[in-house]
């Protein structure tokens, strides 16, 4: 289980997560997000590939988390393993990811909580000497 901290926010859910690289940070955020939604451990049966493009690393992080939430709630896909590559692109950022996971049965696996979306409000990704630190507020 990846380490994370809750950030105080009056109405919503703020999460501070760390990673050794930007890819590691994105991986850890995804793992923390789904650990808050369900305890179900998916098998690595289905493979999905996605590409996302955003103006900055912090916006890319929000797009990544919302893409995973949409895949989960719309396509019933619970992710497990992520292979992520983030590159620069014309002043912006591109994410290419291969995701392995399993189809999720909502009827027989009640979720632990509601998470509507990751928001762009006060999103931060900071890089210091040894790690990347992100802060994201989720609408719950």
């Amino acid at each position, binding site marked *: 289980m990846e380490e994370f901290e809750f950030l*105080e926010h*009056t*109405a919503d859910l703020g999460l501070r997560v760390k990673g050794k690289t930007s890819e590691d940070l994105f991986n850890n955020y995804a793992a923390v997000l789904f650990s808050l939604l369900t305890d179900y451990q998916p098998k690595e049966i289905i493979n999905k590939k996605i590409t996302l493009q955003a103006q900055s690393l912090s916006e890319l992080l929000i797009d990544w988390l919302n893409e995973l939430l*949409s895949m989960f709630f*719309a396509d019933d896909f619970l992710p497990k393993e992520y292979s992520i590559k983030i590159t620069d692109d014309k002043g912006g950022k591109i994410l290419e990811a291969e995701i392995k996971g399993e189809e999720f049965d909502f009827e027989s696996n*009640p*979720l632990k909580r509601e998470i509507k979306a990751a928001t*762009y409000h006060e999103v931060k990704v900071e890089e210091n000497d040894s790690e990347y630190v992100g802060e994201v507020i989720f*609408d719950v």
Partner: protein
Amino acid sequence: MREDLLEKISDYKYRIPKSYKPGMLVDGIIYSNEKLIAGIKRDKALDQVANVAFLPGIVGNSLAMPDIHWGYGFCIGGVAATDPEAGGVISPGGVGYDINCGVRLLKTNLTLGDLKNKLPKIVNTLYQDTPSGVGSTGDIKVSYQEEKKILLNGAKWAVERGFGVREDLEHCEENGTIGGANPDAVSERAYKRGKKQAGTLGSGNHFLEVQVVDNIFDKVVSERLGLRVGQIVIMIHSGSRGLGFQVCDDSIKVMLKCLDKYGINVPDRQLACAPINSPEAKEYIGAMCSAANYAWANRQVLMHLTRLSFEKIFSKSWQSLGMDLIYDLAHNIAKFEECIVNGKKKTLCVHRKGATRALGPGNLQLPSKYKDIGQPVIIPGSMGTGSYLLVGTKKAEAETFGSTCHGAGRVKSRHEAIRTVNLDQLIKELKGKGIEVRATGKSTIVEEAPSAYKDIDQVVDVVESAGLSRKVCRMKPLCVVKG
């Protein structure tokens, strides 16, 4: 924010002058009192009121109601009107993810005595019959074509399918069906999320409550609404579920690109927006109205399920139990409404993010039944305290684009509530007060503990003292069903 820059205008009104942040186009106005404002200063809600004042084409002031708290983009309790003729914008962040989250109140002719020894049975039946919880799926499975009809017709779709009667529609804001919906602007993902969840309550702060009227403030209006002390009413709080979340998410991504395209400067990316007359805004409005209709259909179906539960418990038809809808309101929406600006009528885009429409007596948009008393305004409190029924006023129409508060408003974070509230003790306390609670997620009860919310009595006192609404009656919860 810097406290010395917050000006007290009156006992119920505070101002953030536009000089507070370069880029603010108008002042921020917060309806509050000494006690509530002290709590508001603790988080970033006031800065959010200032940020909303950056929106191009904003008219009057960036407003906040006394239930204001820190949200994302807009504060919760925020109201902003923009003028389409003056380059005004629409911002999905001013509506939120749960598009047309709202509340409805229906009455019964039952009294507290009729429920004696029946509360556990009532709460269990409602809990079993109401699909609730995160990602919960309903019994109503609809095809893609049918879902399209929901997005176009809202509560009217539900009534046509037998979930209620025509009179229900007259007692909904926009008659339960907002014009301007464009189901083709709704993404396939949003359809997929919506298909599974029609007729479900959801989670978080959403609930279904059986309440008893415990205090009457306006005898004349209460009698007109058929309400008296000791009478049982039912409140339903729900929204557009995953369909709305997806519509908002899809459109913010588009609107972020609009900031550069249209040269818009906002201090928070979550306030991404586009000029109302732009193709991007038109697409969002079509999708947002579709999600709003989905929410109205959803609450109509939930009310129907509640009526059936009561029929089962009391072995009587819902009609003979007097289960008529009093009113249904949106509190997360942007709508084009005729407003009075400097004495002149103007059609503005009114964003209400955790705020309620509150039309005064005589307004032509009101159903004939309510024309002389003003629009019923339903204010849900936290689960251990009370809720209120108010009516709108002419002053609200003149000062706040016909808007008022929407609830108690949070003071404690969910995390802090989890840390400080003991579940068993809370359930015991509520039971001691005669309140039965059933919830799918145990953390939901703790996160929604009464101590996590502001004092509803104070919030309602502010809107009444400021003249934005008038108190009609207060209700106390008896049974609470939560997701």
